[in-house]
């Protein structure tokens, strides 16, 4: 078991607290720990009747850092996909039932519920189907000066409508980043292509594609 490694509250966060609470947090060194300060706030307001002399100074919080360690077997289909990326190829599967191309690949088709074992290679060119200019990281305290462009790329020739299905549209597509373009000029329908890392840098990861960039003449 590993005890928690204390992390410091950001000064900005302390500034947002009521002064009496912020002062308490500092006095007890709690700004050096992590925890939910809103729970401290509600504790201060709470009335305890069973133990008359209870006060916040008696409050004990046990800190635990939960250590969960996993490996994730990518399975047959995604392993082959990742191996393809390492070799500079975008591989998918094609369902012989409905004709859909699946990128990233699956060995089953959820539309037809059948085995899928026909492999195809795609050049990776496609269009932006949706995107966002993101100014935030997964840590909410982080704000980017320049936005990251996250986008879903629909690969050329894979868009398929199936009237017999309640799903109106399918396209082989992946989430990735778009670079090499002024954020203001990104738009749905922009044609893009993959920009690969150098072969010696590829490891069999989605990041072997460094980003997608506009095709010449678009962007």
């Amino acid at each position, binding site marked *: 078991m590993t005890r928690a490694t204390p992390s410091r509250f950001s000064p900005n966060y302390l500034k947002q607290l009521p002064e009496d609470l912020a002062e308490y947090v500092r006095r007890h060194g709690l700004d050096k720990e992590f925890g939910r300060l809103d729970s401290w706030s509600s504790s201060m307001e709470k009335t305890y009747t069973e133990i008359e002399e209870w006060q916040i100074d008696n409050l004990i919080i*046990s800190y*635990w850092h939960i250590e*969960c*360690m996993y*490996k994730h*077997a990518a*399975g047959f289909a995604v392993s082959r996909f990742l191996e393809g990326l390492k070799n500079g190829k975008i591989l998918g599967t094609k369902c012989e039932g409905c004709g859909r191309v699946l990128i990233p690949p699956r060995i089953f088709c959820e539309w037809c*519920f059948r085995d899928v074992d026909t492999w195809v290679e795609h050049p990776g060119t496609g269009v932006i189907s949706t995107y966002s200019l993101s100014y935030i990281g997964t840590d909410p305290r982080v704000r980017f000066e320049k936005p990251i462009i996250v986008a879903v790329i629909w690969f050329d020739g894979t868009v398929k409508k199936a009237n017999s299905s309640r*799903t109106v549209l399918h396209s082989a597509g992946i989430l990735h980043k778009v670079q090499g373009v002024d954020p203001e000029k990104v738009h749905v329908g922009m044609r893009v292509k993959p920009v690969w890392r150098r072969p010696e840098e590829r490891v069999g990861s989605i990041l072997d594609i460094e980003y997608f960039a506009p095709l010449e003449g678009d962007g």
Partner: protein
Amino acid sequence: MDIWVAGVGEIPCRPSYDEMDFREMLYRAAAKAYLDAGITPADVDGVVSSGMDFYEGMSITDSYTPDQVGGRLKFNTLVSNDALNAFIHACMLLKTGQFRTVLVTAYAKASNILNYPEIVFNSFDPHVVRPLTPHFYAIAAMDAQAYLLNSGGDARDLSLVAAKNKRNALRNPSAAFAENISIEEVESMEVVSEPLRKGHVAVPCDYAAAVLLTTEKSLGKVRVEAFGYSIGSYSVDLSLKEWGRSHWARAALEMALRQIRMRRVDFVEVSEPFAHTELMVLDGFGIVGENVCKTLRDGGFNMDGYLPVNPSGGCIGMGYPLNAAGLQRLVQSVNLLRTGRWSSCLVASPDGEVVDGGAVVVLSAEV
């Protein structure tokens, strides 16, 4: 409203399926269940899956369940704890009359979890239990110690259970830890936490199972006679736990017994993450006339005994697929009933390694 098992599918237990991810494992199991039932996903009204995000290393796992089991655009829900709870949840859906056929799925990808003991450890109270950093084997061992004291058993009885189950598993092609092993060989294994030896502990495994339940009699292969579930004395700080007893078992069984007249089953399948769990749950049921440990020593729970227990090999013989253990037991029970050797059984599964809670299902070959 009567409920039948229309079909079952599984992929055999293995220490690891490196070549398949959980979607591929579930797809294989579900495809077998559909084939067994002679129906397609179009005939299914909903999916109930069993899952524990902590085991899967992925949040909100129910979102990732439907595609690979034919559940796309259908009712879908995930039930936590042991998979027998998911099975019972599906039965209750069918009893509403709004569903005709429901698929139940469960899987374990134990090989993905690199520090399983710590995952279980985090189920304990952070103030008064975790600081002592007990391994959950030690918690289970205290249960075993208390059980043996309560029941007049001794540590060798645990080896009898382990050897029986490993030998039973030799007939089960889905078992990963079958072994023609003697009691003495189990007795000679190293102690992990007294009185538990290595051979008394079921080894976590990879596994996937799918069961199709239906109210359509013409599809029925095995009948679901009754079910029950309960939580016994239980608190995360372990202070309310009555050591060495499975209180949940009798309460769950009584719930099931209220639904049927049947008072005898031909065999029992019970998930046993530890050898003593099997005995403790049997004792909890109160269905064994004599002392449970004495009956065990007399061979009463053997394949040819008066009440075979875990003829499939149980979790010790097959592998312990975490929360999927209950559906593993259920699938084995259905397969055993379909051999024609037996006509009824009691399926039981606790909600985890050291939890006083669980579920039971009574099945019969009568359709």
